[in-house]
Structures are given as C-alpha cells and as structure tokens.
C-alpha cells in the first residue's frame, strides 16, 4: 500500500508538468487550430526566465572586507550583490534565496509577450495552411529558439536551487499513519504539484466564469458565428495564445529546481506532451489534464522494481505503448469531442 502511494506521489510532479504543457498545447489547438511544435521551446524559455532572474538579482560588485584576510594576508575581496546594498543584507539574501518563486512574476509578462509576438508574427499566417505545414514551421521555430538560448546560456544544465525553506524532504508516510521512512517526499515536488493544480484551476475558472472566457469558449465552438456577432475573436484568440505560452512558461519556471534547465529540455518534454494531448483527446482541456497526470503516474508505476523485473524495459516505453493502444482503439482520445480531428 505504501509503495503504491509513493509511486502515485512520484508520478504527480512529472504528471503536473505534462498536464501544464498539454493544457497549453490544447488551448492553442482548440482556439486557433494550430499544432504547435514550438510549445516545448516555450516551456524551456520559461525555465530560462528563472535562470535569468536569479542571475540579475545576484549581480554583484567587489567590496574589500577589512575584517578578513586571504591566505597572503591581504584584505579579502568579497562579491556583494547590489541587492544587499539596496534592501539590507537580510532582505537581500531572502530575495536571492526566493529567486525561483519570484521568477513567476518576472516570467508572466515575458511569456505573454513571447506568445503574442509568435502568434502575430508567424503563426497567424499559417491558419489556412495544412497541419503538416504548421508542424514544420513551428518545428523550425523550435530549433531557432533552442539555438538562441544555447548561444546565450551554453549547452550545460544550469542548476538553480529552490528556496532554503523547501529544500530537503519530509516523511509523508508518518503523517498519514504509515511506518516511518517508508514514504519520503521532497518538499519542492509537493509545491510543484500544488502550483500546477492552482494554475490549472485558474485557467479553467478563467474560461468558465469570466465574460472573456465565455467568448473564447464560444469561439472554440463556432468561430464564424462569434465573428458575425461583431466580436473581434482573433484578438481574443491571440491573447489566449499568450496565456497558453504563459502556462507553459510557468511550468518551466517551477520545474527548474527539480531538473536543471538545458537548451533541449523543451524538445524532450514536447514529444511526451504531444502523446499526452493525443491520449487526452485533441482539443479537450480536461482530457489533457487527466491524461497528463494519468501518464505521469503510470510512468512512475512502470519504473517500480517489481514491474521492471516482470517486463523489462517497460518504464521506457509505457507512455508510447499507452498512446498507441488509445489511438487505435479510441481514435478521439479519452475525452475528445466527437468529430474533432477524428480521421
């Protein structure tokens, strides 16, 4: 029993990342009808927003510390971040420590801007072209974005730690009445899951309870009629593209402490996210979220020792296997609407 709970918990954080990326992909597909292969790159750009902010705030100047000396007996030169000068040492250190959560604020405007520029500048011209062309041009864009990031940040992963308060793990098993040290779970993964749940909830609430969201949903159902009612649906869809980009970017920001970002992390997640979207059903938002968590948990179950001993290699292929089976037996995915991309 405790092993099962442990695997479910382990699956949650990866599942959250899948769900967030797949949610963004589905938003774009549902509103604009575009298959966006550059979505993984948006995830990666989000992660690098966190790296950038942590670099900006720890930007420092050298100060000579008279009280300490180096091994030659000269006064020691210490790097002091500018932020210490402005806010005092205690507040400054706290801000640097909390750089990853702070990056959320930093990333939202950047990601929305990136998304809107992408949509207006490039993807707008591809609505009328076949899906294959959309895949190809966004695939090219993904390569370009990835190479730009690689040029500025190098090819190696950049470790960016979580705040001190969330480092380490806690004994989840002891809290719910199992023996001690059976279910150990890192704090940050729990934070990531809650954050993902919050974002997913926010997106759904936005679509469900605001007028803007209502218009967008109407546009997803019948774009032409909404246009005939005198609503500028294109503008709203552009904003939705920005929001989808922001969702992917935030998923990237918070993923940084779990996995140090490198320039190809987007591509690694992209392939899996597409599989997630297809399993969930093209154009179905709840389907994308459900499939994201489901596949994340399945993946972590498949990497249990007992399962691997039974079927060697299953942890590597489980997601693809599930996707193939779903695609062949239930063409519209788990929760896809009838008639949407069913051929």
């Amino acid at each position, binding site marked *: 029993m405790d092993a099962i709970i442990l695997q479910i918990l382990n699956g949650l954080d990866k599942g959250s990342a899948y769900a967030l990326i797949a949610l963004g992909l589905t938003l774009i597909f549902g509103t604009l009808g575009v298959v966006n292969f550059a979505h993984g790159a948006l995830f990666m750009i989000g992660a690098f927003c966190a790296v950038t902010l942590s670099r900006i705030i720890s930007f420092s100047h050298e100060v000579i510390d008279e009280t300490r000396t180096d091994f030659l007996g000269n006064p020691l030169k210490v790097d002091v971040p500018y932020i210490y000068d402005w806010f005092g040492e205690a507040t400054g250190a706290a801000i640097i420590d909390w750089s990853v959560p702070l990056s959320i604020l930093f990333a939202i405007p950047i990601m929305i801007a990136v998304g809107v520029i992408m949509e207006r500048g490039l993807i707008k011209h591809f609505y009328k072209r076949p899906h294959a062309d959309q895949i190809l041009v966004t695939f*090219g864009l993904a390569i370009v974005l990835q190479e730009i990031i690689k040029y500025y940040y190098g090819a190696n992963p950049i470790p960016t730690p979580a705040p001190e308060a969330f480092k380490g793990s806690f004994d989840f098993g002891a809290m719910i009445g199992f023996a001690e040290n059976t279910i150990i779970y890192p704090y940050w993964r729990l934070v990531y899951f809650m954050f993902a749940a919050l974002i997913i909830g926010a997106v759904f609430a936005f679509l469900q309870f605001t007028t803007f969201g209502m218009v967008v949903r109407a546009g997803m159902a019948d774009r032409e009629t909404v246009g005939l009612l005198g609503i500028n649906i294109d503008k709203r869809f552009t904003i939705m593209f920005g929001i989808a980009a922001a969702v992917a970017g935030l998923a990237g920001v918070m993923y940084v402490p779990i996995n140090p970002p490198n320039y190809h992390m987007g591509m690694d997640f992209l392939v899996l996210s597409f599989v997630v979207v297809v399993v969930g059903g093209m154009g179905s938002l709840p389907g994308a979220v459900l499939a994201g968590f489901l596949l994340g948990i399945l993946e972590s179950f498949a990497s249990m020792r007992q399962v691997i001993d039974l079927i060697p290699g299953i942890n590597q292929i489980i997601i693809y296997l599930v996707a193939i089976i779903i*695609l062949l037996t239930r063409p519209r995915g788990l929760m896809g609407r009838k008639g949407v991309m069913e051929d």
Partner: protein
Amino acid sequence: MLGLKKKDATLLLIVIGLTMFAPFILNPFPDGSAMAQFNAGYPDLMQRFVIFGIFAIGFNILFGLTGYLSFGHAAFLGIGSYSAVWMFKLLSMNVIPAILLAMVMSGLFALLIGFISLRRSGIYFSILTLAFAQMMFALAYSVLTPITGGETGLQLALDDPRVLGASQTAGGNIPVPGLFGMEMRNSFDLAISSWVFTFNVGYYFCALILIAAFYLAIRIFRSPFGMMLRAIKSNQTRLNYTGLNPRPYTLAAFVISGMYAGLAGGLMASMDPLAGAERMFWTASGEVVLMTILGGAGTLIGPVLGAGMIKYMENIISKINSDILHSWFAFLPDGLEDFIVAIVYPFIGKGWHLTLGIIFMLVVIFLPGGLVEGGQRIAKWLKRGKTEDTKPGKSTEPAE
C-alpha cells in the same frame, strides 16, 4: 532511355554526372588555399551525401507522394545499421549480404509499423510513427543491450564468429567491410598541380546504389502506382468514394520508403561498421524531414539536393570559427570588422543549427516547394525577362 521520358532521363543523367564527378565538383579549390576549407571532396563527407540522399529519396516516396508525414523514419535507418553490423559479425565482411539483410529487416519492421500506424492519418499518423520510433530507441538503449550494444553501440570485435571469412586478419586486426576483395575504405588520390582529388571505393559503391535508387524512384513516380499515391495525397475521400481502398497503396509506399531507409542504414554501417541507438532518436527523423522539405517534397531531385545541402552545412559551416571570420573581414576598418564578426558569429561554428532552423523556416514560409521551386521561379523569371509580352499559361486547378 530505359523507359524514361526525355525530361526524366535528363534528370537521371544530371544525378549520374553529379555523383560520378563529385570528387571533382566538390573540390573546386586548390589544396592549401584560403578557400580549401569549403572543399567537401573527402570520402567521409561524400559518402554521407549519397547515403542521406538515398534516405531522403525514400522518405520522399512516402511524404512527397502520399502526404503522410512520418516522424519516426530514423528507426528504419537504425534497424538497417544494426542488421548490417550483425551480418558482418556473423556471416562475412562482404557488404552485399549485409545490405540485403538491412533492407529485409527494415522492410519487415516497416510492414508491421505501417500496418498499425496507417490506420490513422494526419497528425495522428505522425504521432504514432514518432511513438514507435521512440519506443525502439528506448528499447535499443536499455533492454535490448545484448542485441544493440546499448549506450556504446554495436561494434565489431576480435572474436566474432564469422562463418564465411576469418574473425581476424593475419595481423590480428578486425577485418574491414569490402566488396569481393575491394575494401570500402580504399582510396586513390589524383593530384593535378595543387588540386588533390580523392576517389574512394566506398563512395563509388554508395553512388552507384544512389543512382539505382534514384532510377527506381523515377519509375515509381511515373508509374500508375505513383499516380495512385498522388491521388491519396490530393483527395483520399474521393478515392474512397470511387470504390478504391487506399490502405494497400499507402502501406506499400511506407514499406518501400522504410526499405530505402534500411538501405541507407546498411550502407552507413558498411562504410563504418558501427551502429548506435542515437541514429534512431527522433531528431534524426526530424533531420530527414528537414532535408526533404528543404530540397522540395514531391519532386524527384529535391530530396537529394536537400540532403546534400544540410550535410554540407553541418560539416563545412560548423567548422568556420571566429579566426577565419576575422581573416575574411580583415579588409574592413577594425571597429566595423569586429562588429560584423560579432553579428555573423552566432550563425556559424557551433551555431549552424540556428542557420539551419532559419533557412528551414524561410523555406516553409515562402517556398513551400523547397529549393526546386525556387529554382523553377528563377528560371521562369529569367524566361519572362527575355520574352516580355508572353503571359504565363493558365494553370489548371483540379476542382475540389
């Protein structure tokens, strides 16, 4: 000639000319000159030109004719490589059985994967092929290590049980792949004043196969079977309504193009008897898509051009470094020189992928027909320049 129309025969002759005289064409600059780094006429690179040419021709039979975009074609390349290396290990160092087995194995896998994947079309087909390829990559990398060599890749060893032939040469080395005594790595250098042209056995072997593959592709394009594939691309529903089942045709195209990929993989292993799982990774599948689109999907010569261009860029542009750039722009005033070098620098050397991505995007946006369409447009523009008042003929669009 050979059952070809005049236009296709010209195309075939062009390809024959290009491949046979490649050592000359690709080495236009004398050795030791400043431009010598643009020479691509060394065996390793020339072999890659033709091998990826074959791969792209095969991919084009599927994507260019039927419009089914496979994102997992590199899997067949990998299977071809593995089969060929196993043939070298077990049977003999002759390349013929290795290549035959590579084609048969990749054909069988293509039959299986195609049979399942072709139940769906459009983006679903792309994802299914991608999923299969990723599965094979993951398995080859981990569980199938006894067969595939895992992370280190499959290599020849000194104690291979080679049935026809010795496991070691007289000198105690691993024998090299050959064709009835001609070793693939043998080269013959021809020095004409300061030019050095290298003629490599392996390259000419690959080039002959490329010509055969190209000829077969022309015949497929012009055959009733090819017409049927085009019909599937333009309107599958209408084809269904006329009472035809498109599935056997697409499956046949998928298997043929998988066998082309296997052939390319087998040749790759014949040139360098080594196979690794990274050949099956999905970026490798993406690369062949780039080649085909860049050259011109659905055209005969496009994929070959695209493969050549990408491999040329990969090897030549990636070698340019900032010193070379500085020497090029040395004639400019100092500040301007540094400025231009700083602008150009991200696009060369390690950044060649960026150049590739940008060129690819430009091609998809402005030239959906690839380089071939670009060439046709230029040709048309030149023709119009000569005869001012002839209007371009009305093209007939099929009614939808």
